[in-house]
């Protein structure tokens, strides 16, 4: 008789394409790196500190929650790290430490873990965090005062706040090329337009984000802003200005794309993206907030479960031989 081996027994299929959550998250972080590095160079060590604290505290909160809830600790999938990173990217470099820690608590615990953790969050956790923080400590997110001590070689005004207060006359102060190259006041990870776009393209090519959403979002921004702009150019800024300022690009490539809070089917993805762009501009142009991205994303997250019910007929459905 030969020795009886113990074999691995599991269910079909026995192949897997090798992708994993961890791989996906590492790719997201890699894609965001250019924008973050630029932010760190522009805003100095304070920015680096905020980013590190944000990522670290997000992971720590997740670990703590898992311990408290007696769940397996899974911080090595970098899920919390991605949330912390995206949250950090939306913060000004001068934000105090306690706000970062409170914010990541909101993101990770309130925004995701209590709903059942990864994949269960109905809203983008990082955006929920920012929304709750801006609701509470609006002054911390006033980029003009937050960055007042920096010596910057360009117009040191938050473009969107300037637009809100002084009208579209300010658009001339911000040439598009310099906006794209990061010469603007803003959050750590949101100023470097080129970097974000490159990161986004990388993720699209790698298949980690659904390009339909990003494209639809940008289209929504451009079309809506353009309609406003041609109806009254003296009151509303140009589409490109909106596209390259604030959190817009971050929204299009990193925030609207959070997988669990965005639709999967084709038509819903387009509705979702266009609605996001539309709401962003609507809030900026006729709402009270200088930047509407955060609320626009939350709104489209809200309608996501409903619109994602629009899907192609499943195989064999609606055939003519229908008995019923």
């Amino acid at each position, binding site marked *: 008789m030969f020795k009886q081996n113990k074999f691995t027994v599991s269910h079909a299929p026995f192949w897997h394409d090798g992708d994993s959550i961890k791989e996906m998250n590492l790719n997201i972080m890699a894609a965001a790196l250019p924008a973050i590095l630029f932010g760190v160079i522009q805003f100095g060590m304070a920015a680096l500190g905020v980013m590190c604290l944000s990522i670290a505290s997000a992971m720590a909160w997740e670990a703590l929650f898992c311990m408290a809830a007696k769940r397996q600790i899974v911080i090595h999938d970098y899920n919390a790290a991605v949330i912390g990173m995206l949250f950090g990217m939306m913060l000004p470099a001068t934000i105090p430490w306690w706000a970062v820690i*409170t914010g990541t608590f909101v993101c990770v615990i*309130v925004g995701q873990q*209590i709903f059942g953790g990864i994949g269960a969050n109905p809203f983008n956790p990082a955006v929920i965090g920012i929304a*709750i923080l801006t*609701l*509470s*400590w609006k002054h911390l997110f006033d980029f003009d005062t937050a960055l007042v001590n920096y010596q910057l070689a360009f117009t040191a005004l938050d473009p969107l706040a300037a637009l809100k207060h002084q009208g579209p006359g300010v658009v001339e102060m911000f040439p598009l090329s310099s906006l794209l190259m990061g010469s603007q006041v803003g959050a750590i990870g949101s100023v470097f337009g080129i970097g974000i776009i490159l990161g986004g393209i990388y993720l699209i090519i790698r298949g980690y984000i659904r390009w339909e959403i990003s494209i639809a979002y940008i289209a929504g921004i451009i079309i809506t802003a353009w309609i406003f702009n041609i109806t009254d150019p003296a009151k509303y800024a140009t589409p490109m200005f909106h596209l390259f300022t604030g959190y817009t690009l971050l929204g299009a490539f990193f925030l609207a794309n959070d997988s669990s809070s965005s639709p999967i089917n084709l038509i819903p993805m387009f509705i979702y993206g266009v609605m996001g762009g539309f709401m962003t501009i609507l809030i900026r142009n006729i709402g009270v907030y200088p930047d509407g991205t955060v609320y626009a994303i939350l709104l489209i997250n809200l309608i996501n479960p409903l619109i994602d019910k629009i899907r192609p007929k499943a195989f064999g459905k609606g055939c003519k031989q229908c008995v019923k």
Partner: protein
Amino acid sequence: MAQSMVKEFTKGLWAELPPFRLVLGLCPVLAVTKSVENGIGMGVATTFVLVCSNLLVSLLRNIIPVKVRIACFIVIIATFVTVVELVMQAYTYPLFLKLGIFIPLIVVNCIVLGRAEAFAFKNSPTLSIADGLGMGIGFTLSLGALGAIRECLGNGTILGNTVFGPGFQPFTFMVEAPGAFVCLGLMLCLMNLIGKK
């Protein structure tokens, strides 16, 4: 007798604590708990209505025809609500302003009608008072507690007294509408956790 009175009284404080156990009467709970004062004010007003209506319903329980009982309950409750409304307007006007539309809305508060139907209509006046008082006090305490948390974090004060040092910047989210929902949700979670043990 005394024993059952104690039982009816205490059940409202924990076992059937509204609004946590019976998820009813949420609107005032969410709307008026920006501060402890508002919360307790609302709670006391509701308690008054609860006790009075419970008492009256219980006294009349043998006279009221079953078919029109709901109509009768509503008349009784609405009467006491209006009394509260007028009295508060006359003597605690600032509080009346803050509670606004929620005072008249006690009339549709599911707890009040619920107790009349489920308890007072079937029990003696003394028990009904105990029940109304217990439920009312439970409700008041819940509102007070929620108000305390929200006021403390969201405004840095409790009953108007500053709690934290001067450097503290309040977590305004808590006193906003969304904060009310989130805070109540998390309190409910806490209750479930404690209740489990």
